[in-house]
């Protein structure tokens, strides 16, 4: 079938979307480079953190008042559990290693560590990475 010379409206709006995305990013980045933005964003972030801290303190007081566990209590329990779990993992790993050693009579298990790289294909394997992006990929020499 002959190629249509008329523009495709669906592709047109996809291009438009892509251009808008780039444009908005560039425009926003310009705005974000200003001191005013950095100052405002920092203030907002610090204020948010301070607000969170106050809210947490208030919730903690209420929890204590009603004899409920606070977030830090739950976190403390979680930390204890986590550290117990860590110890269990440690013990399980040691046991597994001992069992493996016993089963194999002290001989190393798993695949042999004797693999050699295939001489030619290894060099060729890298080629598509360079040629596939020949226009823009650069290999810069070490300085």
């Amino acid at each position, binding site marked *: *079938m*002959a*190629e*249509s*010379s008329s523009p495709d409206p*669906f592709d047109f709006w996809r291009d438009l*979307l*892509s251009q*808008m*995305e*780039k444009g*908005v*990013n560039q425009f*926003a980045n310009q705005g*974000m*480079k200003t*001191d005013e933005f*950095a*100052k405002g*964003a*920092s203030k907002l*972030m*610090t204020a948010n*953190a*301070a607000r*969170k*801290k106050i809210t947490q303190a208030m919730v903690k007081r209420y929890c204590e008042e009603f004899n409920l566990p606070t977030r*830090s209590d739950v*976190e403390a329990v*979680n*930390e204890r559990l*986590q550290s117990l*779990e*860590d110890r269990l*993992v*440690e013990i399980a*790993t040691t046991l597994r290693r001992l069992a493996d050693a016993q089963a194999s009579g002290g001989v190393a298990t*798993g*695949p*042999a*560590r*004797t*693999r*050699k*790289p295939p001489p030619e294909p*290894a*060099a060729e*394997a*890298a080629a*598509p*990475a360079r040629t*596939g*992006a020949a226009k*823009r*990929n*650069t*290999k*810069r020499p*070490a*300085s």
Partner: protein
Amino acid sequence: MTAEAASIGERIRTEIDRALQRNIKGLDYLSNEGPALGVTPRELLHRRGTMALYRYRALADEVYRVPLLIVMALTNRGYILDLAPGQSFVEYLLKQGYDVFVIDWNAPRSDEKKLRIEDYTLDFIPDAVRRVQEASGEEDINLIGYCMGGLLSSIYLALHPESPVRHFAAFTTPIDFSEMKLFAHWSDKRHFDVDRLIDSTGNAPPDMIFAAFDMLRPADRAAGTIQVWDNMWNDEYVKSYRMFDRWATDVLPLPGEYFRQFTKAFMWGNLLVKDAFEVDGRPVKLNRIKVPVLHAIAEHDHIVPYGAARALVQKIGSKDKEEIVLKGGHVSLVAGGNAIKRLWPKLDAWLGKRST
């Protein structure tokens, strides 16, 4: 009917078909959690607080002698290196015959808010290296670091020239922080009171870190949502979008003291590139790194631009060092179709002959 009219008709039919598919698959999209990630079989070798060391099960009958340890970035989960089967960097390495270990980071607990760069470079990484030696029975180790994992690995290597690491590959590793223009501007000490922030939050909250990454390209999220709707008929596109989107939004908090130290030493002082950074009173000189190094940088990396990354190869003391700039962005350098074609075979070609 002219060929042009037939072509337009065909195009409209395709779009109507896609619109129907969008409605059918859109429901599935909303009700389904998406593909399972990080499914390559592995064993948890060691876990201590925020650090988790995994060993992946070999997929080759014969492996290289030298085991490979990968250090993940602190801000994100390690499953970016192990997406779905066929798109997993770890799986690729296993099939090529590497014995793969990964340090993945859990969210730091509140009692870990005091962790500093010292803890990572003098304790966690050396501990993992020792455990890899024990588990593999080999003295030598090869190391890969992604993004901040590359930075921590570089500091570790500079502090331990006697370490058993024989070769080091860094991916998009920032060294010159003055070149991370927007981040440097936002954290300018004239406006950004890091002490006040960390004193009130303990650990640096993940929503703040996510917002900082997101603000670098504020239109991307909205445009991505429109694009995924447009491509809802395309299962592969949707699968890929969901994998990357889930990972990008799964941001970890950073230990408060680490964040404070990082901001002051790197974002304010840019001390590493000036050879003025110290860890526990010990100077960190990158020229003390003598092992062969490959640094892969993404051409369109908006998080770690080329200017911020190039200093690694410039500053290290290795004779055998190579920097490659590959097409792609910060994430697509290591994962997805772009990485499968470019970085993975390049890394294998470089590392395979150095792993015997």
